[in-house]
């Protein structure tokens, strides 16, 4: 494998990371917003979110990408490949994040909320001061797990012409008639990326444990 080929792979890796980060930056907060809608049982919106979550959970990512890229333009929403890829990844990960946040909210100790209410906190204040600071710690593990799934799902967007790691590797393999080196290199890159994410999680959990003496309530 030549240096130029390796550079292609690295560029692909950059694309994978950028797509994942963009997907996360939208998907994680969006998931929280959806979870809060369900937690607060806002009429109609609650039902809509539940339907959205069920639909996306049942749709393969590849199908979802093709839908966003080819079907949305017929409805007047035309997106370039990269924005389409980001939108797809974000909308795909949001429902899973929603379920993670929602599980954290549902299992939040009731007595703590009652103590907040009894002190005269409104729901919003109780969420901000009591729930949120603990919620993200409980959800950290599952959220990181969903992040790694998102990162590994990015090759699906190759189908609309976005060149990420896997697409880059297969191109190199096709050009050199020697697929083993690029795919081995691709595997190493994926492994390193996942290792970085998991390591970051460990560091954060260790910091929480040191500060509060426990990893999660």
């Amino acid at each position, binding site marked *: 494998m030549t240096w130029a080929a390796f550079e292609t792979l690295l560029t692909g890796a950059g694309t994978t990371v950028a797509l994942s980060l963009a997907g996360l930056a939208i998907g994680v907060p969006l998931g929280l917003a959806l979870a809060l809608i369900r937690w607060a049982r806002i009429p109609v919106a609650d039902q809509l979110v539940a339907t959205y979550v069920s639909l996306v959970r049942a749709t393969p990512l590849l199908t979802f990408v093709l839908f966003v890229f080819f079907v949305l333009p017929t409805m007047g929403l035309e997106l370039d490949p990269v924005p389409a890829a980001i939108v797809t990844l974000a909308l795909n990960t949001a429902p899973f994040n929603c379920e993670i946040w929602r599980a954290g909210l549902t299992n939040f*100790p009731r*007595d*703590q909320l*009652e*103590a*907040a*209410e*009894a*002190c*005269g*906190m*409104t*729901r919003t*204040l109780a969420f901000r*001061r*009591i729930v949120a*600071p*603990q919620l993200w710690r409980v959800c950290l593990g599952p959220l990181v797990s969903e992040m790694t799934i998102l990162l590994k799902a990015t090759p699906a967007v190759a189908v609309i012409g976005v060149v990420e790691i896997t697409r880059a590797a297969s191109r190199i393999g096709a050009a050199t008639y020697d697929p083993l080196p690029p795919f081995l290199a691709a595997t190493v890159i994926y492994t390193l990326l996942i290792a970085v994410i998991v390591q970051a999680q460990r560091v954060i959990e260790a910091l929480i444990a040191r500060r*509060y*003496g*426990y990893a999660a*309530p």
Partner: protein
Amino acid sequence: MADAAPAVSARLVCKQFDGIEVLRDVSLDVAKGSTACIVGPSGSGKSTFLRCVNWLEQPTTGQILLNGAPMGVVPSPKGGTRPMTAKELALARTRVSMVFQHFALWPHLTVLGNVIEAPVHVLGRPRDEAVEDARRLLARVGLEAKADAFPHTLSGGQKQRVAISRALAMKPEVLLFDEPTSALDPEMVGEVLEVMRDLAKEGMTMMVVTHEMAFARDVADTIAFFDAGRVIETGDPKAFFTAPQTDRARRFLTRYGI
């Protein structure tokens, strides 16, 4: 004369959960500066009644008055009432504080953080002032040294004393205790009851749901005996403990060896 109004007045409070009657026509007055102990068998509605006072449970019918002002509802100009908005209810709740059976401290905040949380963020008091106040309250329950500790490092008795400081930090008109010693090891019950005795002596208005009969007998100004969702006996503790009026109360007290 508004000043003569009881600190808490419950009038014909009824509560149903999914059609099951939990409280029926409960009426009780707690005079300002007095301590009312609510006793009775498990499942008789004592805790539910206490939780109606600060509207953690909404009475199905009936009224709660705090120093004459209705809780949970606002009289409307045309007569009748409307439910309080979330903001009005939150404001009304700042007048009553509650101590829970399982402490319900917030584990992500230090002891000091727990005590100043609501005064600063709900009442909007200046932080320095709230901290000073909190240190004084913690000193009074013997926990000034634990101000910077997190709740999980404390014993049950210490947690409950922090919870009492947190409740007092709101400078409430009434303090509600929901079985404050039931989750404690026998050795830690005393330290919590001692704090409560002092509060009673200082003229704090308190409503205490408890199974500690000795405490009720010594400290209460009024006893309310609950059975099956009703108050079947109220009055002076001496009379209640030496000569209960009802068979049910007599049988109940026998089990405590009284």
